[in-house]
């Protein structure tokens, strides 16, 4: 049975979501925003693990959100991994937040949102964040959108060049500047295309796989924003081969997670769940 039919008939394969959130968000009706509802939704969709940063870690007093992140990681180890979020508008808090969370088991990277924080990724206030991610070889998920404006493809290029040890996840794949995002993923081995919101664009997944390789494409949904089944459907109905689908749905994120978890453990690869 094809992977697509497997999902259509109620089954599937494990999936890892590299772009998640948690909790309510002011602008939208979001019925699965609570942690327990998210875990139930992940069970429904076969999502083995999610890497998340709560909405409260991105808007308002983000310190509360990072605490919420760690609580979720500790309550559901192996199901929930965390990004420590930083807000460059409060630069005095950044080192402390990174110190407090990056050593915690299950916290595997950093999340930044340059557009909501109205601070370009190249801004000096982000320098300590990039340097820490570089030193620790961390995953860093950045919201990216378009060509410019602070987190577009042209903005991401200098940080991709300067910090080659950062596993740089282009959240939303520089939405609507697909050329720019794919070019970055082709040029830089440490840059990945993340599918949240981008997933719906017909033919884009094929193009990403053809030009950047399926090893550079990560499944992501903004969950609890978007139903994981929508993204799974976009991937499994795309005109690509099943090994490529498996890379996107699971293998690539598993590899990145395992690398991070191994570094945390200071030894070989750990058992994920």
């Amino acid at each position, binding site marked *: 049975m094809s992977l697509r039919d497997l999902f*259509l008939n109620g089954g599937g394969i494990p999936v890892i979501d590299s772009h998640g959130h948690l909790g309510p968000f002011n602008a*939208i009706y979001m019925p*699965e925003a609570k942690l327990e509802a998210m875990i139930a939704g992940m069970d429904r969709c076969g999502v083995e693990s999610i890497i998340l940063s709560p909405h409260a870690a991105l808007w308002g007093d983000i310190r509360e959100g990072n605490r919420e992140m760690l609580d979720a990681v500790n309550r559901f180890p192996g199901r929930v991994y965390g990004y420590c979020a930083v807000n460059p508008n409060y630069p005095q808090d950044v080192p402390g937040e990174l110190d407090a969370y990056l050593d915690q088991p299950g916290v595997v990277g950093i999340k930044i949102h340059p557009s909501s924080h109205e601070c370009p990724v190249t801004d000096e206030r982000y320098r300590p964040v990039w340097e820490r991610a570089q030193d620790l070889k961390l995953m860093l998920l950045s919201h990216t959108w378009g060509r410019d404006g602070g987190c577009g493809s042209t903005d991401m290029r200098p940080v991709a060049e300067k910090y080659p040890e950062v596993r740089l996840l282009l959240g939303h794949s520089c939405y609507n500047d697909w050329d720019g995002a794919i070019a970055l993923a082709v040029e830089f081995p440490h840059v990945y295309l993340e599918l949240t919101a981008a997933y719906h664009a017909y033919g884009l997944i094929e193009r990403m796989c053809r030009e950047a390789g399926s090893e550079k494409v990560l499944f992501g949904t903004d969950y609890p*924003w978007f139903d994981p089944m929508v993204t799974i*459907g*976009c991937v499994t*109905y795309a005109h690509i081969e099943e090994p490529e689908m498996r890379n996107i749905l699971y293998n690539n994120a598993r590899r990145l997670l395992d690398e991070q978890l191994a570094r945390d453990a200071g030894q070989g690869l750990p058992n994920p769940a």
Partner: protein
Amino acid sequence: MKPFDCDIAYGRGTLALPREIETIDDLVAELDHCGIDEGLVWHRDARERDFNTGNQRLVEADAYPRLHPVRTFVPTCCEEMPAAEDFIRQLRADGVRAVRAFPAVHRFLLDPVSCGDLLDLFAAYSIPLLVPLPDMPGIWYGVYDVMRNFPRLTLIMTETGCWGEDRYFRPLMKAYPGFYITTNRLETAGQLKGLVDKAGPEHVLFGSGLPFNYPGGYLLMLMRADIDEEAREAIAHGNIERLLGEVPW
């Protein structure tokens, strides 16, 4: 399950897409790939070039019984269109049972002054009108105005936004039996189940937005939603079959 996609298009547009559906054969092949049985189809020229050109190109859909052409209109005021009664006669003669409008990009309003002659007849003959939300002047304000002015109209809004827009559309579903939305961009997690549980499946139609969106995403979302089979069938094809069945030709 025989999915009926209420929002599919073809033709080369102004801006290149990552994957094109240029010809009607491309469209049919993709429907086959996705296991979609039937569809309401429009030609991209109807929006991007000229509504008449798009309508004329769509004649080739007549060769495919599974494809149901949707005719695009503009107001009758500028003699680009036949009189409203004649337009309805043409629809009937051509077997067209749904219409489409792009008011924002075509620079008109869907209000009684501009389009009352047409919309009154669409309501009288139960002809569904499809409008993409981004093409509605005033966006949701515009939708509310249309339903207030034409409460018996069958209005199908497509592309209603991916940010859980329930606060906008659920009141319309409660107030107007003829208000519908399609599944394209209805993708907030748990949104479809919540909508079906609270408002019923009657106001939702499967529509993908091909070639702008992957049909498979909305198809799998619908197939795996935690709703009962009756609701799933209604959304997948039953509701649109009922609506088209109400058109008296």
